[in-house]
């Protein structure tokens, strides 16, 4: 809502500079978007009178004008505007003037002719296209005939008015009007408002009932009033009215439409004007649209109406979409003579629905949605009728038609000083509170700190004690509130076990060298369903904005691969990212997914770069596996096994393992399938994803201390030549199973494949560690155990002991 401080002064005596006023409004009422005035930064722009206009000899579209700018000599100005004419008052930017955009106008020559300045359009001096009257849209503007040549144009055009643009919150629709804003400022500054009342002269020779019958469904339109004005001349509005409209951001059209917009701004009451002669049957009904009905609205759009749309209909069908936009056919044209003027209150949720479904978010619709002052519907209608009759030389038919008229009463809310102080933490006195209510223009009955407050209809946002507390708080001033902390019973602040595991997981991965990524939870349908760890249905948006973001993710890897691709595309080839977040598994019989905490990582490029000190180290399966092992160990997970897996179609079939804890599948690790890497345009990338919830569910106990053996350990090394398809885990598990209790550890320390060994063979070297916590181990005991296991290994795997 753009508020002109000049207009405000009609209603309230305020002499405060606009910046200060804006600051006060912001601190007490609603946010202020900007404080501006159109003449800011403009220089030397004056009224000119075109004494003579002749064709430029060297151009078919330029004219040479002799312009009186109030000086002894006429200025010669070359003008290219199509509507230039002699004997007109025009806007002249003198030599060395500044027009909009801080453009400097200089004396110049145009095709050989001197041009001492420029004749301007409204846009050229800073008006928005959206407010310039249509007739001047493509040309220069003509000032009123009484404008004095040589005088600055600013006051003629209302450019010297300070405009405060309010960003009105949905609850303060009362401030979507000049009168409401004046009331608010009166409360803030402890002033009184003086509001003009209509002084309507009705033509008693005619009666409204002879003109029109109105019916309205009270549910749809609690109030629906109509006046008729006859013998109206539709024409341009006077300057004072046009200035008020364009300063509020509304384009002047004609005296009838302009008055309805003026009243919208003044009272916050949307009005609609019909060309009475276009209403068939002289009967109007407010009802819901019927199936199949259509309406061509003022924007020339043919709309199929919905059964939820409230329409104004005559005998032929809808003539307006209530509260949002009128019909083209029944609209005001230059030939209209009899005007039917509607002032109503429509059902706000119905208007909201219509505005949304038809994408018609007009000033009127916004006010109906948020609510309007029910106490001034009739007054606003009278004021509008009076103005139209005055500006269009018409006559207001006696009486008004009533489709519905809701009873308007003040709302009474009771509250106590104690309650106010309890909620605000203040020590306000009864008198201070009474004063605030009175400044707000509320009726107050007080009895020892207990208030009965009558809230006028213009503040329909107030209905409960909490609303009154807010009024007290903001007028008293939030700056004046003390700052304390909640007292009362102490509560422990700590993470739950689950929260702690999640945070531990993050810091373990970070200490392993991975950076935390946060990717998008919404992704494409395809990406959402990749790298799945369990059977589930995707959860899809009903009305997505783009095909990239249609579905809630069911894996974290897809997002991480997007991140890797983004990095690789920007020549960052070494990437180690992890993400902790939720995946969304939906069961077929449910609308809502289960949200499961996962953790995943994507690693590609170098683990460490070549340096003067070390060889470079490429990220491979085992680097990634090391991270998983470290994570699981740190989280206290035991009995972990890795099993080669070909069930993930997005993963390299030879380089992927499922991860189990006991028999429970908790995730997988491996290289991304080359086809997927190619699709993303990324290098070889190793990923893992774990179901963190399963790890949380283990609820791992605290570590139990194991005494360290005081006796020396004995180790035996062995290299085994085995067939390539035998896995390390097979050997290790076998050794562990076959050994006696004295075996404490088996560790692989070398793997060899190559020329020194058969093509189908590989060599695995292990260190077996033996210990006994109760005595020194004897060599022969160890040897016996070791030899027994070795011979069983030979039997089982056909290994050759090297």
């Amino acid at each position: 809502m753009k508020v002109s401080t000049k207009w405000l002064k009609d209603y309230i005596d305020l002499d405060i500079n606009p910046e200060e006023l804006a600051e006060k409004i912001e601190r007490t009422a609603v946010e202020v978007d900007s404080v501006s005035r159109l003449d800011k930064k403009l220089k030397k722009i004056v009224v000119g009178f075109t004494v003579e206009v002749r064709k430029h000899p060297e151009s078919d579209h330029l004219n040479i004008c002799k312009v009186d700018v109030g000086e002894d000599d006429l200025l010669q100005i070359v003008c290219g505007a199509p509507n230039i004419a002699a004997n007109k008052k025009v806007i002249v930017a003198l030599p060395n003037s500044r027009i909009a955009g801080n453009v400097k106008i200089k004396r110049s020559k145009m095709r050989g002719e001197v041009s001492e300045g420029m004749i301007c359009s409204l846009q050229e001096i800073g008006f928005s296209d959206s407010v310039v009257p249509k007739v001047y849209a493509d040309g220069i503007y003509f000032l009123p005939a009484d404008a004095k040549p040589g005088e600055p144009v600013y006051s003629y055009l209302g450019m010297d008015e300070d405009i405060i643009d309010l960003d009105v919150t949905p609850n303060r629709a009362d401030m979507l009007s000049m009168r409401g804003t004046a009331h608010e400022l009166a409360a803030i500054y402890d002033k009184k408002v003086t509001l003009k009342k209509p002084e309507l002269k009705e033509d008693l020779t005619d009666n409204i009932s002879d003109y029109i019958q109105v019916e309205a469904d009270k549910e749809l339109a609690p109030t629906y009033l109509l006046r008729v004005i006859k013998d109206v001349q539709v024409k341009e509005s006077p300057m004072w009215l046009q200035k008020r409209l364009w300063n509020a951001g509304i384009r002047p059209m004609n005296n009838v439409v302009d008055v309805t917009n003026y009243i919208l701004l003044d009272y916050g009451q949307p009005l609609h004007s019909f060309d009475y002669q276009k209403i068939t049957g002289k009967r109007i009904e407010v009802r819901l649209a019927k199936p199949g009905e259509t309406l061509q609205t003022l924007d020339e759009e043919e709309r199929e109406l919905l059964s939820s749309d409230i329409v104004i209909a005559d005998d032929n069908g809808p003539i307006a979409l209530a509260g949002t936009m009128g019909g083209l056919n029944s609209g005001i044209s230059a030939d209209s003579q009899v005007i039917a003027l509607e002032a109503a209150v429509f059902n706000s949720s119905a208007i909201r629905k219509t505005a949304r479904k038809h994408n018609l978010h007009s000033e009127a619709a916004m006010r109906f949605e948020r609510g309007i002052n029910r106490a001034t519907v009739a007054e606003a209608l009278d004021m509008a009728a009076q103005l139209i009759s005055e500006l269009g030389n018409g006559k207001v038919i006696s009486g008004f038609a009533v489709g519905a008229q809701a009873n308007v009463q003040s709302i009474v809310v009771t509250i106590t000083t104690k309650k106010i102080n309890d909620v605000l933490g203040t020590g306000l006195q009864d008198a201070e509170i009474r004063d605030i209510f009175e400044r707000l223009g509320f009726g107050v009955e007080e009895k020892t700190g207990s208030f009965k407050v009558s809230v006028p209809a213009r503040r329909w946002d107030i209905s409960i004690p909490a609303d009154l507390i807010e009024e007290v708080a903001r007028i008293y001033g939030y700056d004046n509130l003390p700052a304390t902390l909640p007292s009362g019973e102490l509560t422990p602040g700590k993470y739950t076990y689950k929260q702690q595991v999640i945070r531990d997981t993050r810091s373990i991965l970070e200490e392993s060298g991975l950076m935390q990524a946060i990717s998008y939870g919404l992704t494409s349908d395809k990406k959402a369903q990749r790298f799945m760890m369990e059977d589930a249905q995707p959860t899809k948006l009903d009305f997505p904005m783009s095909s990239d973001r249609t579905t809630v993710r069911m894996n974290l890897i897809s997002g991480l691969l997007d991140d890797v691709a983004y990095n690789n595309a920007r020549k960052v080839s070494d990437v180690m990212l992890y993400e902790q977040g939720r995946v969304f598994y939906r069961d077929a019989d449910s609308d809502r997914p289960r949200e499961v905490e996962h953790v995943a990582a994507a690693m590609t490029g170098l683990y460490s770069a070549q340096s003067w000190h070390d060889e470079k180290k490429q990220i491979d399966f085992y680097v990634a596996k090391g991270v998983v092992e470290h994570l699981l160990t740190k989280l206290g997970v035991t009995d972990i096994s890795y099993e080669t897996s070909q069930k993930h179609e997005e993963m390299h079939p030879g380089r992927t393992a499922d991860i189990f804890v006991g028999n429970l599948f908790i995730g997988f690790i491996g290289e991304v399938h080359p086809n997927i890497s190619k699709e993303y345009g990324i290098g070889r990338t190793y990923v893992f994803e774990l179901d963190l919830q399963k790890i949380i569910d283990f609820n791992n106990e605290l570590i139990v201390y194991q005494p360290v053996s005081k006796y020396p350990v004995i180790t035996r090394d062995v290299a085994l030549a085995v067939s390539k398809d035998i896995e390390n885990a097979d050997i290790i598990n076998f050794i562990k199973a076959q050994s006696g209790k004295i075996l404490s550890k088996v560790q692989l320390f070398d793997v060899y494949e190559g020329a020194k060994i058969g093509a189908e063979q590989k060599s695995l070297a292990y260190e077996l560690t033996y210990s006994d916590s109760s005595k020194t181990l004897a060599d022969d005991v160890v040897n016996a155990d070791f030899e027994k296991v070795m011979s069983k290994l030979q039997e089982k795997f056909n290994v050759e002991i090297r």
Partner: protein
Amino acid sequence: MDLKDRLTELKVKALSEIGTVEDLKKINEIRVNLLGKKGPITEVLRGMKDLSKEERPVVGSLANKVRDELTEAITQRREKLEIIKTARKLEKEKIDVTLPGVPVKAGQPHIIMQVIDQLEKLFLGMGYQVVDGPEVEEDHYNFEMMNLPKDHPARDMQDTFYITEQILMRTQTSPVQARTMEKHDFTKGPLKMISPGKVYRRDTDDATHSHQFHQVEGLVIDKHITMADLKGTLQIIARTVFGDEREIRLRPSYFPFTEPSVEVDVSCFKCEGKGCAVCKYTGWIEVLGAGMVHPNVLTMAGVDSETYGGFAFGLGPDRFAMLKYGVDDIREFYLNDVRFLSQFAQKG
């Protein structure tokens, strides 16, 4: 030459030899030669049997003295030579200490998580619990329990990704308020919680808009909670995140789930309130929204709004991070460029 003279001559010669020897091996040889069983001193001592009773103790004592002196000289010389040897060895081991160290592999939390972690730490310390809630939420909790019935004009403030008519991507972390209040047993004490998490809005991504961002919701419900308590709590948040010097100011605003509702500005940390590009020359930066919990919200969650009341606030870690670190494009947070992320590796 008598034995005394021989001893004296031996001493002088040996001391000079010891004094000039440069080799640890040699000094060992000297020791063996001089003091060993076949050495001159032993020889002198052996010759004592031919001496008179009177001379024997004199020569014996002298011989012992010479042996002690020489032993001492050899020890000292050896120590000296050992020091020299070590010094030479260490000299050879000299390295270029200006060569770079071996990098330690270390990752770090995402910058938004760092902001959230900082807030969690603050609020855990003040006795709040951290509560998580679903990202795919019911309209019922996201809106209706927050005093936003269907067709409420304030729903326009938040464009929503719907999944079905009743299910949506939560647009705010506020629904966790309702979910937690419903479950909380107020006979066991006040409810003090924060709820950090992802939220979604139907917005076109650009430098200042993201369809996904984060919020941290805060809620305190007890018997005697005041707006002054809210103000004090907000002050602590502002000072924790933006620095101890910060002031806050509250401005009236509107959220359907609080009444009164306020918008909270923090004094600009770039210019100390003098006015700069960061605060758009106002000296203040809008950082969060807050208010006293609306009685309808309490009642709907089954809390007696006559007895209990409280405050709530909601803030945006993305916005905090943008302000604090001067990030001018919110999309950076979700693209995860390693060069972007790694800038926030510093602790604290």
